């Protein structure tokens, strides 16, 4: 079947025609498949006591924690990720492709595996963690910092990739001009590069934030689950699902709204109106 598809594809590419007529059917199926679960969520939403569901202490606590953790993860990602993106885009250092692959690995790694890896690295007996514990008495699992790290681990690649793409696409003549006029590298970066890649950086940060907000597997594995300390929204949804479906649906609705908002903000960037 793939061979047929390939042949068809090649033929379609050589003619001017649009999509084959039958594409409409699988395309509609795909849309339905993606949209119906969201309808299910909306249908189950306890609209009448939504306000009540969303203001229970458990939900408010999870909301607050989710904001703190996801914004913390974005901050870490920006501080470390922007320089990394710059290095990847501009500096031809040995092993650059390896570094890039490594950077994107958390995007495809199952988050639970990421959580286990984080435990083995930053846990109390982990490679770095045991040293942190002995030298400074710092332990990361079961702390809010741990939850932030778990979220940064899975979300930072989104920022790095997007920012790097922005850096590659930008017009470097402005930087050259700044350099000719005597600006140092840091000044050029701050006053010329950064404003030019602003939209990419913004999009990367938004994606990174959305991913961090939705993080579940790495967080529950590495940071555990304690209301007020590490129980972020997705964890609260998961646990609520087992006892209180309405609360779980209400929480899910917030996450859905946030995801939609991110998409709407980014729509001009990603889906330029034709």
């Amino acid at each position, binding site marked *: 079947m793939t061979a047929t598809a390939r042949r068809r594809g090649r033929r379609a590419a050589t003619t001017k025609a649009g999509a084959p007529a039958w594409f409409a059917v699988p395309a509609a199926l795909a849309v339905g498949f993606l949209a119906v679960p969201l309808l299910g969520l909306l249908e189950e939403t306890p609209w009448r006591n939504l306000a009540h569901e969303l203001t229970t202490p458990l939900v408010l606590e999870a909301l607050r924690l989710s904001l703190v953790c996801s914004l913390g993860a974005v901050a870490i990602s920006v501080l470390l990720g922007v320089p990394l993106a710059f290095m990847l885009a501009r500096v031809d250092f040995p092993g650059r492709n390896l570094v890039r692959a490594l950077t994107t690995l958390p995007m495809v790694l199952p988050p639970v595996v990421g959580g286990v890896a984080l435990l083995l690295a930053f846990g109390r007996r982990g490679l770095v963690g045991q040293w942190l514990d002995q030298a400074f008495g710092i332990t990361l699992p079961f702390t809010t910092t741990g939850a932030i790290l778990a979220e940064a681990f899975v979300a930072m690649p989104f920022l790095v990739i997007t920012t790097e793409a922005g850096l590659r696409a930008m017009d470097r003549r402005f930087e050259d001009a700044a350099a000719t006029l005597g600006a140092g590298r840091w000044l050029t970066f701050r006053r010329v590069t950064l404003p030019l890649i602003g939209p990419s950086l913004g999009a990367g940060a938004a994606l990174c934030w959305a991913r961090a907000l939705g993080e579940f597997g790495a967080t529950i594995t590495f940071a*555990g689950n304690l209301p007020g300390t590490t129980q972020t929204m997705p964890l609260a949804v998961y646990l609520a699902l*087992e006892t209180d479906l309405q609360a779980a649906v209400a929480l899910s609705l917030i996450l859905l709204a946030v995801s939609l908002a991110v998409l709407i903000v980014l729509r001009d960037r990603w889906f330029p109106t034709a």
Partner: protein
Amino acid sequence: MVRSWIRSAAVLLAVAVLAAGCGGNDDPSGARSPTEIRVFAAASLTAAFNQLGERYTAANGGSKITFNFAGSQALATQIQQGAPADVFASADVPNMDKVKDLVDPPQNFASNRLQIVVEKGNPKGVKGLDDLAGKDLKVVLAAPEVPVGKYAKQILDKAGISIQPVSQEDNVKAVVTKVSLGEADAGIVYATDVTAGGAKIEGVDIPKDQNVTATYPIATVKASKNQPQAQAFVDLVRSPDGQQVLESFGFLPPPTS
């Protein structure tokens, strides 16, 4: 034009066949082999039920059995939402009660005690529940929604001990894992999980007067399309043979009442 439509139809047919083929195993309405049963069982039963599953398969001419191990509260929710279960074995009575309209009358088949789990060699010198309140001790419990978390809370309340856990895990095995990885110093779990938890941990007994008895009920699910096979598994669990297997993993006989 006609030819292209025929070809389109063929492609669609192929897609439909593929979809049906892929969907077979997830379809509760009977596409799967009639002799395969699904047993939803409390996480604490993992090791014992895996062995019972082998016995069941051996005794029933290779009939397949698939386990879904998780916290009983999660399993009860899944069954409420129509998950294709044939048998449900819960680690407590309340979660069985939650699905009582969906299952046949449950029967108790085992009981369990709780134990404090600590790292091998008990480096923090935990001797009993009182020690868990110590400030420099990282204690992990199961979430109060999870049966073992609820039992732990009962025990601590009864003893008048208030502790601040560093995490409320989603199931009992996660508590054991956190202790065996050395992330937590102690946790409260079933005695059977200490037995099954490997060489990196050990148990500290909780005296009888402080302990509670966890009762395990089992039931066939009314919606099951494989009632005879489901019942056969329940019978195996309750048979002397099955009870012996459970005992070898540290379970106690069901409470006599």
